């Protein structure tokens, strides 16, 4: 029983962070129809920016997060303006490849400055052992779940209620109609990349805190694909459900069956979902069929 609770909480923590990372991915896909293979590198850049402020410059946590947000927003805007905007109207292959190139570039830049080793970072979240139903769980996992939940809720409300959120949804729905009612599509594009980078920053800091600051953070980016396919490529609630499901399933498989299988089980789920229900649990049934 205690193992099960343990795995469940660990899975939830992983899943919540995955959902944050995937949310940025879905944002970009919804507004700009770009599949972003560099999402993992956004996490990486976020985590290392925070590390630089917090550990190297010894700044307080809040300042570190603020600097991180600024860097993330700038990164998002620069990437959109310089790399993705010239690609508008190109084929899927080209757009996918350009984000793959971007991921290689960002990864290499981080590697140039920080090397490949693990960086020591003092714990950001306090981690008192908490016992739930007989299982002892490090408190930082629970806090990570809490923070991710808050951020996800805020972003969901932002989409539903705020002017900018509604503008973003309208562009996602129909670019030309949005333009005719006076929405600046360019600004919306820039904003979705910036927001995606910010949500990746938070995911990156949380992930770095519960695991370690090293280049493996980027490989988390590939796990985004099973999450978004499961939840539906263009659905915000879908990413949350998808993230939590993938997180929990991975932890359960890793705990009860085989840690190696846990690495590949998300992709097996992905293939099954693609074959049975390609638009995911909540996605719009607009998938291009042949």
């Amino acid at each position, binding site marked *: 029983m205690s193992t099960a609770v343990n795995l469940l909480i660990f899975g939830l923590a992983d899943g919540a962070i995955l959902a944050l990372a995937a949310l940025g991915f879905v944002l970009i896909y919804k507004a700009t129809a770009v*599949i972003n293979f560099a999402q993992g590198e956004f996490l990486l850049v976020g985590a290392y920016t925070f590390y630089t402020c917090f550990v190297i410059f010894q700044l307080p946590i809040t300042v570190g997060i603020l600097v991180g947000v600024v860097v993330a927003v700038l990164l998002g805007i620069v990437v959109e303006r310089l790399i993705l905007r010239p690609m508008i109207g190109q084929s899927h*292959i080209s757009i996918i490849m*350009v984000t793959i*190139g971007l991921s290689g570039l960002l990864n290499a*830049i981080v*590697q140039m400055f920080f090397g490949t080793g693990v960086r020591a970072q003092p714990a950001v979240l306090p981690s008192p052992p908490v016992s739930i139903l007989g299982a002892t769980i490090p408190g930082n996992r629970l806090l990570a779940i809490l923070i991710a939940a808050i951020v996800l809720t805020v972003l969901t409300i932002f989409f539903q209620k705020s002017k900018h959120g509604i503008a973003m949804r309208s562009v996602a729905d129909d670019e030309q109609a949005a333009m005719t009612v006076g929405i600046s599509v360019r600004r919306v594009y820039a904003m979705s990349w910036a927001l995606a980078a910010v949500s990746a920053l938070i995911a990156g800091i949380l992930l770095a805190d519960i695991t370690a600051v090293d280049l493996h953070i980027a490989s988390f980016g590939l796990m985004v694909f099973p999450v978004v396919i499961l939840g539906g490529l263009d659905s915000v609630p879908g990413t949350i459900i998808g993230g939590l499901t993938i997180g929990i399933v991975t932890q359960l498989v890793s705990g009860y069956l085989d840690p190696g299988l846990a690495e*590949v089980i998300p*992709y097996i789920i992905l293939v099954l979902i693609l074959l049975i229900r*390609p638009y995911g649990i909540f996605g719009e049934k607009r998938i291009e069929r042949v």
Partner: protein
Amino acid sequence: MAATQTGLHHRSYASELRIWTSRAQWIRLGLLTVLLLALPWVLDNYWLSIVNTALIAVVGAIGLNILVGYTGQISLGQGGFLAVGAYTSVILADRAGLPVPLSIASAVIVTAVVGTFFGLPGLRLKGLYLAIATLASQQIILFIVRRWGWLTEGRGFVDVSRLEFLGFRIQRETFEQQWYWILLIIAILAVLVAVNLFRSGLGRSFMAVRDQDIAAAAIGVNVARAKLTAFAVSSGFVGLAGALTAHYTEVISWERFTLDVSILYLAMIIVGGLGSVAGSVYGAVFITFLPVVVRGFAEFAGGFAPFLQAQLPAFQNAVFGLVIIVFLIIEPRGLNHIWTRIKDYFGYWPFRY
């Protein structure tokens, strides 16, 4: 995507099907032949080994281009298919005792079958979804290769015995030279097969599917069959490249077949030119030589920028990423198109077009 030279006017189908259209092409072919014949005598073993790697990459890149460039099906599963080819050939040759040419041929067939199987989602999915599906197939194949102890007899890697068939055996002293001739012949055959494939009805049906699948179906192309055949033919080439890698490098392990390899091959055909056999060759050579050139530059610049040399792998990756981005933004049709434009410029000089 299929760029035709300006000023080249065909008056009959026969003329359109011709491979050689001008005398300049014959001259260039002559020069290329001289260059290829001279290479093993001019280059030392180090450079020849890079040329050999590039020749294997040519075969793999042509395979991927058949699928991605000519049929329009995105595949991120190249690394997995290379692994299938490599392991099949090695196990058949070294453990089942099959002669190497036969084991390589079987590897081609096995990879074609596996490729067709993983192409099945392509019948239902398009574009982005297919890319993600092939990403999954890459991860699943790699997982099997990593975890199936029988493949490597539990050691994690396989030593491959030196190439030997029909009494011919690669000698240690002339290892690179002998491989050069073998790989050169195979690469030339691959180019010829691919070029002629796209003069045939089958190849044309691939292009029809890429350009407009509904229109293709309307003119009587069996879209499902064309797609699966494209997956099979493409994977066959890739399996050949995988088998050659295994026998040439004489040791294989799963690290050679990761997603990075799939990306490397995609970069080759993007940089070379999607939907062009010549482009696949240019791209394969370019991407194979890129890290070598970057290393040379870092060593050259090491005097005043020791930073570059210390961070060489990161620097190489950065250049690689940058090359992909720059090509896609500035010249999405790749090296092949640049070459076509250069030819046109001189061909029509002093006119602009």
